[in-house]
């Protein structure tokens, strides 16, 4: 829902030492139903709190000054949330649209099941990054852990560093781009040609993530589509 956020340099500040997570989220949710407010928000002393700035549905910018707990920016639409620290499990889970930027590292299941938007992790992301992703684009400046892009359906996972074991296991139609080494590929995940259209897509994603890397140095991985239908000959892979 559209909201008439005040187009000024005004910043509303929440200090989580004195404001509860509930108060913070309610305030940000109220913007989607017409409550007036500025475009920019700043959250101080997050101290690893969970479910910060989740369920937003408005074009605002949220800066979180420190480390966040589970599910930061979960299910967000349209907002831009930037974490100046590390993020715990499930950052930007089920992201619908908008952007989430983690300046530090992200724990497991970053961007899980995301359906749209862009997640940028400037550091490393742990295991299961992009698990069951459904349209989100994820750009990781560093490396990702094992089982990343497990059952990934659509969208792109870009890894500027290395990928852990079983990358893209049981992959559907998501595109995986890795610059560094891949410890191993999961079931039905294969390396594919990096064509010009992919270089263009990669360049666009890296640009959107403000990460300086040469798209031609990446390799592309995708589904072999051998497990899409049950075949007894593939029993060993099930």
């Amino acid at each position, binding site marked *: 829902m559209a909201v008439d956020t005040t187009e000024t340099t005004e910043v509303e500040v929440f200090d989580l030492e004195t404001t509860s997570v509930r108060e913070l989220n309610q305030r940000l949710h109220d913007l989607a139903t017409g409550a007036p407010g500025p475009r920019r928000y700043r959250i101080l002393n997050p101290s690893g709190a969970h*479910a910060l700035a*989740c369920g937003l549905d408005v074009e605002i910018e949220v800066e979180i000054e420190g480390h966040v707990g589970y599910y930061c920016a979960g299910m967000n639409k349209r907002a831009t949330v930037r974490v100046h620290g590390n993020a715990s499990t499930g950052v930007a889970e089920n992201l619908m649209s908008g952007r989430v930027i983690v300046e530090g590292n992200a724990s497991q299941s970053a961007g899980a099941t995301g359906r749209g938007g862009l997640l940028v992790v400037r550091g490393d992301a742990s295991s299961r990054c992009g698990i069951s992703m459904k349209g989100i684009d994820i750009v990781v400046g560093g490396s990702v852990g094992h089982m990343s892009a497990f059952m990934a359906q659509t969208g792109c996972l870009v890894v500027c560093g290395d990928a852990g074991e079983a990358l893209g296991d049981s992959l559907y139609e998501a595109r995986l781009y890795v610059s560094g080494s891949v410890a191993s590929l999961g079931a039905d995940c294969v390396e594919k040609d990096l064509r010009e259209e992919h270089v263009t897509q990669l360049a666009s994603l890296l640009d959107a993530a403000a990460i300086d890397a040469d798209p031609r140095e990446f390799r592309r991985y995708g589904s072999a589509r051998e497990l899409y239908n049950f075949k007894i000959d593939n029993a060993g892979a099930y």
Partner: protein
Amino acid sequence: MGTQAERPWGLRESYLFDRTVIAEIHRAAREGIYDVRGFGAKRRLPHFDDLLFLGASISRYPLEGYRERCATDVVLGTRFARKPLELKIPVTISGMSFGALSAPAKEALGRGASEVGTSTTTGDGGMTEEERRHSKTLVYQLLPSRYGMNPDDLRRADAIEVVVGQGAKPGGGGMLLGHKISDRVAEMRDLPKGIDQRSASRHPDWTGPDDLEIKIHELREITDWEKPIFVKIGATRTYYDVQLAVKAGADVIVVDGMQGGTAATQDVFIEHVGIPTLPATRIAADTLQELGMHRKVQLVVSGGIRSGADVAKALALGADACSIGTAALIAMGDNSPEYEEAYRKIGSSAGFYDDYQAGRDPVGISTQDDELAARFDPVLGGRKIANFLRVLTLETQTLARACGKSHVHNLEPEDLVALTVEAAAMARVPLAGTDWIPGKDDSS
């Protein structure tokens, strides 16, 4: 040769290798893959049939049938949610996906449930407009697959059900074979059309009870603490699972026994994993009692609920409500002799049909074939569901009144006895005619 009477004397069928087993061995040898089917467990299991009510007599007063009030209302989600569900009857419609079921069938479930003031539930395919529009009270499932999951549907749902497992396949994920992945289903699930879709068995972003607590907290935050949060578990280690669900902050716990239905699961899973609904109900209720949370965290029981007798017995063992799935499909016409000829054409028979996975349902319920689905009238189907739910409620009231209860929730274990030693042990009620509860330590 079909029945015992038609068989020549002297032919003896093996108990171990009966014709069903022989047919399955032949099929497995021919096809080289496990049998996937719908419906629920077909084996004989201890169930509510093995319990009887002790009607009132001199020591208890009955209520006058049809005259003295026996209330049936139930409120689900009173622990934390700002807007608990207020239902008129203690029977709800369980989660069944669009994909597994046709759009008209989902609409009918919503229509029927709404007509009698109860809830229906989405499934592993997201929320359709049809079911939202026709369901006054709709529970939205959060499953491991997260197909179609979005915050808008979370907010327009009336409750959220975190599905950890289901009775037909505790520890297993959903399954939808390629011929049911239509254009619409594929779009809703962000999947290619025609693939054999297997859902994850674990949630993608939480892995244990501590994580679940945080996940529930996130769902509450996204919905501003308005919606009741259900946690659904397949009945296995029910004592521990109920404890952990309470600890994680559930408003409502749904326990689905192994008789619970499915649209597509391996037969070996359906028949060999989990515990029956009967013991699961008593374990869950006793666990809530032990925690001091009985009636504070509501208990919904499902898995083989077919009649008001089943409902009344589950309530007497401590449930707040029951949920129906397979019985609802049957109420809408599934397995009806009316379709015998059509069932025969696809190699089945009325009363035996369980190939929900195949998508060729002649009744138009478990299919994504437009032509088959068009055979099903959602208005008539909704009326049948409403009628069936009314009968379940009337039967439950009948039994409750006979036991002298002015509310169906006043039924209690003391109103029950068991017909078998097994049922007595599982339900923790005396064997009929005795004061013996097997397993109960009375030495102290």
